[in-house]
């Protein structure tokens, strides 16, 4: 089972994290948590998670996403999602998290949507 790889780049003043692999209980969730922890501790972070190469996420991964979203928001920041694969999209619909996250298909649109 492949794990999660994360590459970070900056576009304008937004940190874009390109995710590839699986976000599941154990290593994948832990890696995501560690990568997002820094943003949950800084004021007004702007974070865009690119899911185009994430084929699989489980309830543990969803929990990490929600936890990071709430922590970043508490610091006045924003976390948005980009290019969900169909499986991830379905899970966000089932769990109603589609109503929580701001989700975009186009990176430029997503960057422009940050306040």
């Amino acid at each position, binding site marked *: *089972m492949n794990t999660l790889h994360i590459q970070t780049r900056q576009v304008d003043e937004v940190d874009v994290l390109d995710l590839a692999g699986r976000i599941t*209980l*154990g290593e994948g969730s832990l890696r995501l948590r560690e990568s997002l922890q820094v943003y949950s501790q800084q004021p007004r972070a702007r974070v865009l998670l690119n899911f185009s190469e994430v084929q699989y996420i489980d309830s*543990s991964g969803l929990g990490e996403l*929600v936890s990071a979203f709430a922590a970043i928001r508490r610091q006045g920041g924003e976390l948005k999602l980009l290019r969900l694969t169909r499986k991830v999209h*379905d899970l966000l619909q*089932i*769990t109603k998290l589609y109503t929580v996250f701001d989700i975009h298909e186009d990176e430029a649109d997503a960057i422009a949507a940050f306040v």
Partner: protein
Amino acid sequence: MVHSYHEVLRLESRLESVDRAQSQAQLFALEAGFDETGRHQVAMAVREIVINAIAHGNAYDPAKRVKLEFELTPAELIIFIQDEGSGFDPSHQPDPLSPENLLRQSGRGMLLARAFMDQIDFQPTPHGTSVRMCKHRPGSNGQGNGDAAPRA
């Protein structure tokens, strides 16, 4: 393709067992004739219930096992998952779809399993909790494959 099949696995209460259970579920779903989406749904349901059994039921106790049982009938793929924990009452779990619970970190595993399988039942046993899940095989009487929208 066989029309009736049965296999039992006894899993250790550790994280690696979750991936093993998921892989085995993929194989059985393939044998049952499910398409890629259907196989994903079965495997994810098994993954989530096995996580519950290992983490919450057995609390990662190395002395305890999770029994995972697959049964293929002409009409259904049936999966039993039994832990050796102190019991679990799903009716006492907070609703993960309630607005006040949407930002909770945990509690979505059972919701996903319910959405992806046709039926799921929890049964307390003298030695833990037993979960029975089933999904209609493609070409039987139900919708079978996973192209239809999952039930939330």
